[in-house]
């Protein structure tokens, strides 16, 4: 305990030049990252992006190829897992099947020489509302209960950092939503740094203060959920975190802090501050819910809005709170538009010609690149 408190003065997790390769395969490219003490931090990415490897290097279960891991001001790079002030909630929980729930939870305390663990174990189990199941074996619990035991087993040791490796992946959707809120509440209560690995963008956005989106062993972008969603800086982030409509554009001029763009012959404006690209060519992005869709024949659209004419609806799906339109643009690209179901125009059906328009400040600019980066990853993991 004393050792932990000493290092706990500043409990930031710092990764410096951390990388991992297996033979020719690079799992994690050299990475510098500071996770502030007390934050709920998510590593978000598709399978194989290096997020779990990063987590395992912090836990000590994997030795980095280069770089270092520090917790507080202590370098823990060479330390084995059992000497690090971190605990992990494993994917599929990894509860010891031969031990009772209480013995599972008390395992860490007992290894550190705590003699009477009964009181602490009972308190911890009560915290996760499993006090009455202390004598059961893990296999006799439901998935959600096992998940809570796994959290209790890690938290009872009051680690400086709690690592969560896809902790909710095995739960059904309803239970997952419930556990997300519960984990968030526990984190706020105990104030321990949580590092959460997940492929579920909604989960990351619901729970984390800060998200690092990983792709191909690198961090693509780091920021709060709002920053990442409203101002993605790469096409991968734009497509992986939510949906985006992306279109190639050429910068034709500047006026009042706006970039004037030519996108497939359409004149569009974009605040220069919202562009991550410097050059003459960029990718203009707009989220589906930011676009307004209007029937073309009698449209009156304000001059200060960006507009794209000549789109034809190819699909309209009513999903309750909103209607999702797929609109084929004159140059062949398909745009997705989400429209709130307030005043639905009955003429907006497949085959109708429409105008898409939006407030220029809702757009974002990206460096030119693969327009479809991240789409496959996002749908693969949703499955």
């Amino acid at each position, binding site marked *: 305990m004393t050792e932990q408190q000493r290092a706990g003065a500043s409990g930031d997790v710092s990764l410096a030049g951390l990388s991992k390769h297996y033979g020719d395969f690079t799992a994690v490219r050299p990475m510098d990252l500071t996770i502030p003490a007390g934050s709920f931090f998510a590593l978000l990415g598709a399978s194989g992006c290096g997020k779990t490897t990063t987590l395992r290097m912090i836990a000590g279960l994997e030795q980095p190829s280069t770089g270092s891991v520090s917790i507080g001001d202590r370098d823990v790079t060479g330390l084995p*897992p*059992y000497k690090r002030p971190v605990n*992990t909630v*494993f994917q599929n929980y*990894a509860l010891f099947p031969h031990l009772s729930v209480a013995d599972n939870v008390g*395992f860490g305390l007992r*290894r550190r020489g705590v003699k009477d663990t009964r009181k602490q174990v009972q308190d911890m189990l009560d915290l996760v509302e499993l006090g009455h199941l202390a004598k059961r074996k893990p296999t006799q619990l439901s998935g959600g209960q096992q998940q809570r035991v796994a959290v209790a087993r*890690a938290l009872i*040791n009051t680690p400086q950092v709690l690592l969560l490796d896809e902790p909710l992946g095995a739960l059904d959707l309803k239970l997952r939503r419930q556990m997300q809120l519960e984990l968030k509440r526990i984190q706020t209560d105990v104030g321990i740094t949580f590092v959460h690995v997940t492929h579920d963008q909604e989960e990351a956005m619901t729970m984390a203060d800060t998200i690092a989106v990983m792709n191909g062993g690198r961090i693509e972008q780091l920021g709060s959920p709002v920053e990442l969603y409203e101002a993605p800086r790469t096409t991968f982030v734009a497509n992986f975190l939510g949906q985006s409509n992306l279109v190639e554009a050429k910068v034709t001029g500047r006026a009042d802090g706006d970039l004037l763009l030519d996108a497939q012959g359409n004149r569009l404006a974009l605040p220069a501050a919202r562009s991550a690209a410097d050059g003459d060519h960029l990718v203009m992005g707009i989220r589906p819910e930011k676009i307004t869709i209007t029937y073309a024949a009698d449209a009156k659209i304000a001059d200060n809005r960006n507009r794209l004419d000549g789109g034809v609806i190819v699909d309209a799906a009513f999903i309750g709170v909103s209607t999702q339109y797929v609109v084929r643009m004159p140059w062949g690209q398909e745009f997705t538009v989400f429209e709130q179901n307030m005043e639905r125009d009955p003429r907006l059906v497949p085959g109708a010609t429409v105008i898409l328009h939006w407030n220029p400040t809702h757009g974002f600019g990206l460096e030119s690149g693969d327009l479809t980066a991240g789409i496959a990853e996002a749908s693969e993991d949703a499955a």
Partner: protein
Amino acid sequence: MAVVNWLRRNVIVLFGLLALGYMTLPNIVVLMFSFNDPNGRFNYTWNGFTLDAWEQPCGVAGICDSVAVSMKIAVLSTLVATALGTAIAFALGRYRFRARGAINTLLFLPMSMPEVVMGASLGTLFLNMRINTGFVTILIAHIMFCLSFVVVAVKARVLGMDPKLEEAAQDLYASPTQVFLRVTLPLAAPGIGAGAMLAFALSFDDFVITNFTSGNTVTFPMFVYGAAQRGTPPQINVIGSAMFVIAVLIVMIGQIRASRRAKQRA
């Protein structure tokens, strides 16, 4: 129609009972004839009921000595084969190394090779190396063939164990020794136990290989074989039946305990 329906519902039980009868009938005959008062040297026809043999199980010269020898060999070879076999199983199940494939294949040889071939080649080997056959050579032979069975039993268990559990233990401050004692060993225990029981049973009743490697040492199966030439005292049935009853009791106690534990949990 009612009969057909009844049959349909109980056909599995019926076949189960038939199979059980088929397997236990010989044991029941052996048990029955342990109470026989044989007329002459051979205990093959029912003559009359007596408890003589049960009261004096060692009443035949050499019989209890042979049981003691068999016990000693079975216990020792079980211990050694279980220890070595467990280590081999962990190595094969957990690590990749150069001769892994070869070892995996070779381990099956003692199981697949006809016993008489293995016995004969071991006998030839000991003869050529001018090693006097006896207690030690029997032990060497038994350890060898028991080893394969232990490895197979333990390896199946090791492969089924989630390596994440050991990582979780490490993550919860357990040193490598503690991980092994607190997590690895308890999880592998059922496999190790099964392997040990198999080894004991195989060693205790082995005749063929023992026959080639025993010299002047007489194990219980060899005593029975020898006796069968000259006459079969009912004491053989007594010891056989006793072994059978003890084995059944052990299994039953285990079952009852397991089901009681299951009930407690529910």
